[in-house]
């Protein structure tokens, strides 16, 4: 497996910037060739007069999806070397609704508006100004938006797992759906304008057949799902130094987080906080901290690769032994943003969730209020 600039931590260095610029140039050329420097053409998708957006988008989706599966199966690209965005159900659903309204209103989206500006379109320039204002507004209103921003946070979740079928079957169904969407698009265009815009029925048949054959091909690929990605070994030369640093962190107690602090930070919907439950799925199912994801210890390094050194990762189990060992192992792999929960779930229950009335020592009114808030947040179902 080869490293990517992301997995080698070089994305935001001059070499990463140069590579991004080149990829961007190719992206810009392709979008312009597709005719996406025209808001009128883009908006045509909503009135069934020009379905280019759907055709290009789904062709690209299917190509990249199948390409990734082939590259992964042949060992050319490990998926954990690719940055994958966590799912946040509510934020992405609501974001999609607002985005869709803006899209049909303006006829632009961020990428195509850059192409529109390059093509001299003043409506694209005005749109771009709007995007800047909207981003600034988001920043200014962030404190109020935070709950929505973190609403339904899941960690990295795949659609085939959500639906409950295998990845290959999902990919085939997705490809078949795309072929159906292409046929419907052609039909709608023909009905609106009398003629098919770009190609005849013959091209349609050949293209559809190629998509299906390539999609079915993934079944003869070697099965990679059984082989879990190996964590990278730590660098030998840096061993001594990093162990010393690790010990210093343990000594300064810079490796754990107190239950009260974690509870407050989880409740405030902190966007960059990832809480990981490393207990068994059965224990996780019976009770877990709201918003935590369940990852078995042996999959931890692979799962957390995408979160390496960005944001805050907190591990917990019932006690402290396993998370502490896991944290040290992750630190050896170069993670500097992993913490574990002091006293584990047991401590969390005692210190944050135990009703004030059942406690032996009296608590201040302020603490009682906090406990009430925590109980409401963490014990309420759903």
């Amino acid at each position, binding site marked *: 497996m080869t490293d990517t*600039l992301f997995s080698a931590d070089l994305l935001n260095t001059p070499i990463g910037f140069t590579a991004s610029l080149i990829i*961007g140039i190719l992206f810009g050329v392709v979008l312009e060739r597709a005719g996406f420097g025209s808001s009128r053409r883009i908006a045509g998708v909503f009135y069934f007069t020009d379905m280019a957006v759907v055709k290009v988008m789904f062709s690209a989706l299917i190509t990249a999806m199948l390409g990734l599966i082939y590259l992964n199966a042949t060992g050319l690209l490990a998926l954990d070397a690719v940055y994958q965005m966590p799912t946040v159900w509510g934020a992405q659903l609501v974001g999609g609704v607002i985005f869709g309204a803006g899209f049909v209103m303006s006829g632009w989206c961020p990428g195509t508006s850059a192409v529109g500006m390059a093509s001299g379109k003043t409506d694209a320039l005005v749109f771009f100004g709007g995007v800047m204002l909207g981003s600034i*507004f*988001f920043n200014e209103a962030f404190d109020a938006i935070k709950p929505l921003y973190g609403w339904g946070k899941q960690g990295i979740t795949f659609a085939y797992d959500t639906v409950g079928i295998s990845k290959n079957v999902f990919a085939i169904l997705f490809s078949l759906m795309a072929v159906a969407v292409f046929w419907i698009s052609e039909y709608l265009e023909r009905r609106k304008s009398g003629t098919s815009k770009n190609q005849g029925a013959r091209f349609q048949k050949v293209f559809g057949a190629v998509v299906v054959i390539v999609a079915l091909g993934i079944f003869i690929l070697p099965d990679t799902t059984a082989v879990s990605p190996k964590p990278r070994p730590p660098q030998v030369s840096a061993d001594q130094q990093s162990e010393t640093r690790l010990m210093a962190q343990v000594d300064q107690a810079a490796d754990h987080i107190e239950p009260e602090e974690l509870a407050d930070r989880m409740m405030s919907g902190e966007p960059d906080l990832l809480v990981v439950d490393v207990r068994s799925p059965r224990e996780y199912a019976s009770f877990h901290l709201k918003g935590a994801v369940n990852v078995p210890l042996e999959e931890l390094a692979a799962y957390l690769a995408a979160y390496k050194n960005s944001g805050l990762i907190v591990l917990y189990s019932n006690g402290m032994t396993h998370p502490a060992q896991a944290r040290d192992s992750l630190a050896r792999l170069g993670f500097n943003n992993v913490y574990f929960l002091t006293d584990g779930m047991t401590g969390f229950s005692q210190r944050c969730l135990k009703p004030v009335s059942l406690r032996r020592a009296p608590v201040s009114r302020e603490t009682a209020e906090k406990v009430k808030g925590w109980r409401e947040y963490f014990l309420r179902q759903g």
Partner: protein
Amino acid sequence: MERQPEKLANPYLTGVLLGLVLLSSFTLLGAGLGASGGMARLSAWMEGLIAPGHTLASPYFGRWGQEPLSYYLVFMLAGIFLGACVSALASNRFKLGAEKGASFPTNLRLLYSLIGGVLIGFASRLAAGCTSGQALTGGALLLSGSLVFLLSLFATGYALARLFRRQWND
């Protein structure tokens, strides 16, 4: 006589090409395509010019530090613009002006673009990406949230399409 704009490429083959660009982005960068991220970084930079202390202390832009432009998506955005410039000039599709139906007032069309832009700037931050970064990139990775974003985007677009139809009428 003026040169006619070139005929547009076959959308399916163009889509395959776009997929290959995305795939090379995954392989080389280890990240997909994105456009709104670069625009948000530009916004943070602009706000930083006007009110540096306030921006650094703000809860969202503040996390990007002193130099929000030192980010790979800013360079990708510059690349999109450059590549599109070259392609638009080469294919003779560069044309100054606002696009709209002939019978629709220009100012109203620009107002629609502005409001649409504000909504999309906001929504892209909320959903952590746009049509490129979430729908296309996340869709190809089969991420649940990205596909939800894709579906709700198009569903809303079609639901509201009638309201904004008039701007394209000739």
